[in-house]
């Protein structure tokens, strides 16, 4: 069921931004219910790295500051730990709102730092190609692009993973790849924008 949308005669179309975020979120976001108490920001394990605490981000959304909200790094630092979700006194589906903001930021190319969007995209590419994740391919492609300097310190770990047979060098492909592709192609057409 779509969240209740109040169509008032507001002079500032940006105020619709909250409605848009809500409408694009899976489930019912309840974003309009936020009382700015800060439970989310207090709970967040990675808030120190964020431009804005989640609470502030919601205030930006409410204020209709679209660009500021979508270019915030906050959603990209969300680790999906769901602490804020279960603690939120207003039952806002915070983690899912973060996913929505990420996808909107990608669509409008408003993210400031490409590491995280690239990682997600690479991961998704692998899944769309093989139907399974492909860690070796993912890791090598991703690290070479974003953390070339980290490679040396990573090497022992990578070797360990390989020697302990915890990483396959070749990808696994599912049988129903055609079926999956057909489903995803149709799903992309259906994506409400």
């Amino acid at each position, binding site marked *: 069921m779509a969240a209740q949308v109040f169509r008032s005669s507001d002079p500032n179309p940006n105020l619709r931004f909250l409605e848009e975020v809500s409408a694009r979120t899976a489930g019912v976001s309840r974003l309009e219910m936020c*009382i*700015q*108490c*800060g*439970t*989310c*920001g*207090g*709970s*967040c394990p990675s*808030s*120190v790295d964020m431009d*804005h*605490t989640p*609470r*502030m981000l919601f205030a930006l959304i409410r204020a209709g500051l679209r660009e500021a909200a979508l270019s915030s790094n906050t959603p990209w630092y969300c680790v999906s730990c769901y*602490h804020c979700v*279960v*603690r939120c*006194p*207003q*039952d806002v589906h915070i983690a899912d709102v973060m996913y929505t903001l990420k996808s909107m930021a990608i669509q409008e190319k408003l993210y400031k730092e490409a590491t995280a969007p690239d990682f997600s995209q690479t991961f998704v590419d692998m899944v769309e190609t093989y139907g399974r994740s492909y860690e070796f391919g993912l890791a090598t492609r991703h690290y070479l692009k974003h953390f070339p300097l980290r490679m040396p310190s990573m090497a022992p770990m990578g070797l360990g993973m390989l020697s302990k047979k915890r990483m396959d060098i070749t990808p696994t492909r599912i049988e129903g790849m055609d079926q999956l592709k057909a489903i995803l192609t149709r799903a992309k057409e259906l994506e409400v924008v």
Partner: protein
Amino acid sequence: MKKQTEIEGKERIGVYVCHCGTNIAGIVDVEDVAAWAEKELGDRGVVITRDYKFMCSSLGQELIEKDIKEQGLTRVVVAACSPHLHEATFRKACENAGLNRYLCELVSIREQVSWVHTDKVAATAKAKAVVAGGVERVIHHEPLEALHVPIHPATMVVGGGIAGIQAAIEIADAGFPVYLVEREPSIGGHMAQFDKTFPTLDCAACILTPKMVTAGTHPNIKIFSYSEVTNVDGYVGNFTVTIRKKARYVNEELCTGCGICQEKCPAKVIDDIYEAGLGYRKGAYIPFPQAVPKFPVIDKANCVFFERGTCKACQKFCPTNAIDFDQEDEYVTVEVGNIILATGYDLFDPRQISQYGYGRLANVFTSMEFERLSNAAGPTNGEIVLRDGVTKPTSVGIIHCVGSRDRNYNNYCSVICCMQSLKFAHLVHERTGATVYNFYIDMRTAYKEYDEFYQRVLEEGTLFVRGKVAEVTDAARLSIEEGKLIIQVEDTLAGVQRRIPVDMVVLSAAMIPRHDAHDVAHLFGISCSANGWFIEKHPKLDPVATMTEGIFIAGCVQGPKDIPSSVAQGAAASARVLGRIQQGEIALEPVRATVDQSICSGCRICNNLCPFNAILFHEDRMVSEINAALCQGCGTCIAACPAGAITGTGFSNEQIFAQIEGLMRVNFQHEKMTELA
């Protein structure tokens, strides 16, 4: 099987259409409505129609009175504002002219027509329909008399907290008997547990105990302590209430309250009630020194004699031989005319919010625990110390809204927590000099002297952090956090997450309805809101009455509130009761259901539809009957009776059917045709 309108109109009906200045006349063509009614409803018995600027004015009323007298009207329809405003006015006018007051019908063409519609033609059409509905309905009105019920002069007050004590004393002072029933061994309620009261900081005991003593010694007050109400029969004016006096194992006639039994008793148990679990009491105990009544109670579950069969230390030492191990629960029945429920609240158990660590982290306290900790008569003699009983905290965090304003627990505001937390901050400062933090979502200090108190606490240097605390943990990340409780919170004004190490955390826990609120509501035939608070008759205009006549509520049982409000409600409830008693009887609206016993076949469909237990079933005659004094007139049984054996005054089937017919007499097509013509 005949259509209603075929029944001949024998009544002489007057129709009065009010302009209400331009409130109605601005949208509704009132002259047209009146003219239409005269012409189209003549066959229904309308003999006179008038429109007038202000029907409710004395001139307007006189108009009606004159017509009744001169034109011999037998029914009156007034089309004006909502019946909730002026129904009584026009009924009175009818009565003045010698017409039974219930032969008048007021239909709303202001709130429900002129104020909500903009199209004048459609609004006028609707006004005609509404008038026609009223005319059809009023034909079926019957002359009725208000029901008069005598009021027993005695009153029962349930709950001996401050609200109940206040109510009892007010009524007793006016010279009428009161039964005050209290579940615990002593009256006093939660207030007896507090040390100081905000915002004046006067000592709770100093202002409460004189009132307790007054109640205890008042010739018009009979206290049933350690007692509970088990049954309520009857109705307003004539309740019969059964009280269970739990066995104290102490003969109240002989006991002097000397306290030797308590002293000698070898059993020591945690006192979960008065000491909020933070202190101990004996198996034979007087809950606190100023208890009223002064008689001790032997707690059977924790008595060595009852457990093992030997001991009887109390009996051996009792100087007046008052200990009676053979005592049994006693049931007492009393007659009262009115009942005031002041059963109070429970404290939210913060163990449910596991991230605050209460019950797991030793130095997390509830607000009630802190009250006992700071109370000079408490387990630490007023020393504010950590759970180890000795260490003074150097920093204390006070968390607001614990279990309040949170959809996961209770979505209402508990009203008192802000002020209570400010009081705690002040007490910590005063007694320990520790650094105090208050964590709040919104600071709510409405009412007299409250915000001034906030200013004072700010001045004292309490640190305020605006943010709902995310978690309290003992998992240190930095060395300065080691051994401390860390309060993790977003300081929403600074926009950063903070981790604040403290020694002690106090949780301002929510006020919640008593655990057995629903049972109590059911026992007294009143209703609870979804949250469990008792529902008042009107949230603004009738805050201490309930939908059940003769049952009043006062204090936190109606919703979270502070001491001044509780006292005010106790006094207000007693004023309502005293008014009743002094009148000697009460007139009830004659909207009631009755069973035609010649049609009733005793199918018993209606029997459990009545929440007021007004429907009795006569096994011998196999018929149901409605007790008119208990009936509140909702009409549910009338609608449910499969045989059509139940009828209701004021809202009978005939009246409603006729009104529907009248309402449907005008449709938009008609209106358009007349417009064209």
